[in-house]
């Protein structure tokens, strides 16, 4: 009977909408919507306006319109020590990465009995990321920071998925709802203590003279520099954002119909096939929501690169902080922020896609 449209999803013809429902929307919607609009939309527009104004020594702006900030962003894009050689090197590295990645990808595709072209596309994506990453590390400009932030955040998102998936499956396969909630709460509890303090504890653990390196040394291994490296920053990103992947992914896993997976097994699918063809599509909404949250959280992280990157491994937020802080160049900061927001939102829009977006929203 579900075919009868009982809840149309688009704004319906006014005459067919029940008058009472119409009336009640505004009081429900207005307070929250206004609040968010005041705190987000208006200031957001202000940022755009600021990017066209003149900087003032001491912070803030002088209300004189200028294109300087945008000019500077473009100029900084040009003032780069890298040349075509770098681009060539990036292409070579990317190609090598594609070659290396496609071997296991094709093998996996054959094993899973799936189309090889999809695996090749994945390998190509990987190669593209490697190439972009190479460019990011060579180009000495804002683009580099942007690219780096995006690449690291994507990496953090992938790692978060890798860690959260087994955990979500583990939790949702517990039988008692109380155990489930206990495990979920155990995910949340550490986050009630200040993230700064926990990050400081991570610093201690990974320090050159910290317990981990002491352990390595006592095992007769060399000490490894963990802190202020990409490793530390990505670890920090994962640590900070992981719960935001676990919760939605768990919610999605909880709704997975086990019978379908059993049916797939019954039809002769191997476990990895069941995972890829049945399980993953079913938890896709959770992956999307979690992925979006982790990505956004990571790409704009300030504390993690500051505390664990030690000023040597920086992300966009550090650049913004410089302009709004020491540099006293709010308009340039605003321009970077505006560009950054556009890049983030656009990349989300492109990757998530319209249909899934509807699911997310």
């Amino acid at each position, binding site marked *: 009977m579900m075919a009868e449209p009982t809840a149309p*999803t688009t*704004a*319906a013809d006014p005459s067919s909408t029940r008058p009472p429902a119409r009336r*009640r*929307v505004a009081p429900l*919607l207005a*307070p929250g*919507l206004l*609040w*968010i609009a005041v*705190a*987000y*939309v208006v*200031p957001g527009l*202000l*940022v755009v306006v600021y990017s066209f104004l003149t900087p003032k020594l001491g912070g803030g702006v002088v209300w004189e319109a200028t294109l300087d900030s945008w000019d500077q962003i473009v100029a900084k894009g040009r003032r780069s020590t890298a040349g075509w050689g770098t681009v060539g090197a990036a292409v070579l590295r990317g190609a090598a990465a594609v070659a290396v990645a496609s071997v296991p990808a094709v093998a996996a595709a054959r094993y899973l009995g799936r189309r090889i072209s999809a695996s090749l596309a994945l390998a190509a994506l990987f190669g593209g990321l490697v190439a972009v990453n190479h460019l990011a590390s060579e180009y000495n400009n804002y683009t580099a920071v942007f690219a780096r932030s995006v690449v690291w955040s994507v990496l953090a998102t992938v790692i978060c998925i890798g*860690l959260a998936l*087994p955990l979500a499956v583990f939790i949702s396969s517990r*039988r008692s*709802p*109380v155990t489930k*909630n206990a495990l979920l*709460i155990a995910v*949340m*509890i*550490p*986050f*009630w*203590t*200040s*993230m*700064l*303090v*926990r990050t*400081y504890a991570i610093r*201690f*653990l990974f320090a050159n003279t910290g317990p981990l390196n002491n352990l390595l040394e006592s095992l007769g291994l060399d000490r490894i520099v963990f802190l202020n490296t990409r490793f530390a920053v990505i670890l920090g990103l994962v*640590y900070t954002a*992981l719960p935001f992947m676990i*919760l939605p992914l*768990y*919610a*999605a896993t909880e709704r997975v119909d*086990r*019978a379908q997976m059993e049916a797939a*097994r019954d039809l002769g699918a191997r*476990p990895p096939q069941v995972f890829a063809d049945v399980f993953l599509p079913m938890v896709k909404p*959770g992956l999307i929501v*979690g992925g*979006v*949250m982790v990505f*956004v959280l990571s790409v*704009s992280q300030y504390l993690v690169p500051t505390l664990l990157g030690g000023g040597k491994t920086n992300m966009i*937020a550090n650049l*913004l902080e410089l302009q709004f802080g020491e540099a006293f160049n*709010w308009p340039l900061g605003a321009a970077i*922020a505006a560009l*950054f*927001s556009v890049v983030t939102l656009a990349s989300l829009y492109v990757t998530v896609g319209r249909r899934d977006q509807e699911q*997310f929203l």
Partner: protein
Amino acid sequence: MSRRHPGTRMPKLAIGSASALVYVFFYVPVAVLVLFSFNQARTGGRWAGFTTDWYSALADNDRLLTATWNSLFIAIISTAIAVVLGTMLSLALDRRVFRGRTAAQQVVYLPVIAPEIVTGVALLAFFSLTLGRLNDMLGRSAQDAIRMGRPTIIIAHVAFCTAFVALVVRASLRTLDPSLEEAAQDLGANGWTTFWRVTLPAIMPGVLGGALLAFTLSLDNFVITFFVSGPGATTLPIEVFGQLRRTISPEVNAISTLIFGASTLLLTGALGIQSAVSRRRSRPDGDSGPDGAAVARPDAGLRNPDAGASHKSYPSNPQLIGGGKP
């Protein structure tokens, strides 16, 4: 293709150990800070003997206590407002049809996807602009001027908390059988009664989950708070960030340990209550799973083997954390 089911134990083991690893990942840093709070050495690193001195020192550390109180106060108020606004928003977005719904949706979830640092900066610009104008308009002098502080922090926190609450509550609204509300109306309940007696209890797990998330986010927010705080409104993360210039004082570890302990107790207590409630509402082995098979009951007329099947799609199971997603 031959069937192959060996190693069914293997993935289970792998999943279990991977999960254990995640918990280790979460808790080792916490363990370190708990340990440090009992360490005699002032600067971390070496263990200089057990002490509870830092806890007594904490009692005298006004700055830290004030900052903690500020954080809690702001988190509680923001969460309270956000839960109301977020729930209302999710009801409007999920239960009503209106023009511009998509646009409203996009605005509501803006805080979820807007980079924090941009928001902080934008809010600073916005508040310094508007508060200045406001003070001029009201003719406030320097003494009684409206300025940044707890109110501005709360305005900012409520905004992003509302979005997260709306997200989580909407997820539980989506799994809610819409005819539940219709049934209430059908039985003569008006909008209010329906909401209070039927909808709210049914989505309570989502609402609580949203509140929990909002509270966590508000309590731990640094970047946005940093930009919009004012005199006397230093929160714990900001205080700690200031301390990082030297080294985190053991008192910070002590208060973090206390917060950790309190939240553990609190949530464990909540869990206990929840398990009692859910045990009362359903048979021992689950009220929703396919394994909630019917036990033969002293049923006067008709006996049937289909228990559980019918309400499976709309579990009333009070799950504390509703998850972030449909």
